[in-house]
């Protein structure tokens, strides 16, 4: 604000309005985030004090014969987890959204039903699918038998080569509602006149989609991708619920979130280590940062060229 002499001032009521939010956010979010980054350059001594150790924690994480395979394994698994979401969740989300914007009966009902799994807790979803895929109960097997695929059933969650794709697809099943709603929002925002004009000009349906709708929803594709990326590299609950902190069988479902938890709190015989935990968190931070910057670089500029 400007005072009588044209100088900028900071009136007391602004402190009242902004104070609580800034204090809370700084103290319980930004400070822990920054301190956590700092901690990754320290090592914990036996007497619980911290000593500066430069990049030693990172070197250990990347090269130690116990830690490195876990870190690279979790990173690889997490990338795979992300690609499954990009290849299955987001295209199906877009398909469902483009069906929901068509005029017809029951669209509101379908929308409500399709979004339903998204509001439930990951813990519940994880257990539900664990039960369904459990060979003891045999629900999945008998359903596959009905469509003639019975002999392909396997206890996927227990097999190292199938456990990760299975958990990824369960996560897709749960969160399909998010890309669906975001794409739906983008699609209903496209003016009808635009589509009608194209149809009058003789555009076929696929041309209308690829030449008009697709470029217009490109910003949403960017947002959906970055949200998927951040969500996936922050995931933990589903793997922890279905496979425990050890992310079995033989670490095949281990992702960054479970690695972070184990490193921080320890597992079985190995003690937890706060500064190594902070080091894993710093790596997660860097990975997420790269994703967000890539999004800003690729999409924030493009948006302008396609804006109406």
């Amino acid at each position, binding site marked *: 604000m400007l005072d009588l002499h044209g100088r900028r*001032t900071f009136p007391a009521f602004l402190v009242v*309005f902004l104070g609580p*939010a800034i204090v809370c956010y700084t103290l319980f979010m930004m400070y822990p985030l920054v301190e956590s980054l700092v901690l990754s350059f320290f090592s914990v001594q036996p007497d619980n004090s911290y000593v500066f150790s430069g990049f030693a924690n990172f070197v250990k994480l990347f090269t130690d014969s116990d830690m490195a395979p876990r870190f690279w394994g979790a990173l690889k698994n997490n990338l795979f987890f992300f690609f499954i979401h990009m290849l299955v969740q987001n295209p199906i989300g877009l398909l469902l959204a483009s069906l929901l914007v068509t005029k017809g009966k029951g669209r509101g009902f379908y929308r409500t039903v399709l979004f339903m*799994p998204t509001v439930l*807790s*990951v813990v519940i979803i994880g257990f539900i699918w664990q039960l369904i895929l459990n060979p003891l109960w045999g629900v999945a097997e008998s359903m596959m038998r009905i469509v003639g695929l019975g002999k392909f059933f396997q206890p996927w969650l227990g097999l190292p080569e199938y456990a990760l794709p299975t958990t990824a697809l369960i996560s897709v099943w749960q969160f399909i509602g998010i890309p669906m709603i975001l794409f739906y929002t983008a699609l209903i*925002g496209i003016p009808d006149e635009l589509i009608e004009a194209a149809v009058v000009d003789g555009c076929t349906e696929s041309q209308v989609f690829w030449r008009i709708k697709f470029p217009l929803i490109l910003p949403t594709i960017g947002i959906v991708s970055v949200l998927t990326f951040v969500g996936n590299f922050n995931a933990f609950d589903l793997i922890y619920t279905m496979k425990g902190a050890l992310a079995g069988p033989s670490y095949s479902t281990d992702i960054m979130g479970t690695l*972070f938890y184990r490193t921080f709190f320890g597992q079985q015989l190995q003690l937890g280590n706060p500064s190594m935990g902070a080091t894993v968190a710093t790596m997660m931070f860097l990975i997420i940062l790269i994703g967000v910057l890539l999004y800003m670089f690729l999409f924030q500029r493009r948006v302008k060229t396609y804006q109406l």
Partner: protein
Amino acid sequence: MKFDNIKDVRRLRFRGLFQHIVLIFFSLIALFPIALIIMNSFKLKKYIFAAPFALPNAKTFSLIGYETVLQRSNLIINFENSIIVTVVSLFFILFFGSMAAFALSGYKFRGNAFLGFYLSIGIMIPIRLGTVSLLKLMSSLGLVNTLIGLILIYIAQGLPLTIFILTSFMSQIPDELKDAGRIDGASEYRIYSLVLPLVKPAIGAIGIFTMIPIWNDLWFPLIVAPSARTATITLGVQQFLGQYVSDWNAVLSALVLAMVPILILYLIFSRQMIRSVTAGAIKA
């Protein structure tokens, strides 16, 4: 559009049918697992295995699972904890968030843009990454295994997006409205209380979208407040299921009890929720 011949009409009708089939197919995939669990939670164990796809009837009906859950679990306490944590966090997120958004949208002051940027960092960077020092902080404040500790974390987590969205809604309110109030001698606090009702729909939508992740969170209850006294419903169910994993009746009933409140809430508010998302996006 005009349809000149019968072929076009037929093609459109076929397409409508095809759209329904795809939507029904995916709706069934979404509903089936949930329905299956609810159905079987009301059956005797024998029939859960013998006829998992059948609805419960007089012969197969049983509430044994629910009895076990209510006797053996802390689910009632867990529910109370979840309700306290969610409601209190939500109240402060909306209260602090709307005040900050009011200041950021209504006044030009030194550092306005910087504060907006500073507060928006938290939208993309998950608070979980600060867990190591957050736990240190909580233990030095004596807030480990307290609901207050959880509430403070959730307030910090919920503020960035709330402030971001409310700022964009509040900046659409015409200045004349506020100036009229000022001419009448209203204080800035009074003007805030006049602006608040104008963004009620946005506050409602943010409320619902902020509430769900808090209610469903497993990470912070597990790390900051894992004691039996402070466990929230998500953690409580997770622990109960782990313990009673071989008691199918109890497991199914616990799952149903944990999901029913949020499902009811969702079914009541789903229309508003989705409408507010789409309305917000069109405006932006």
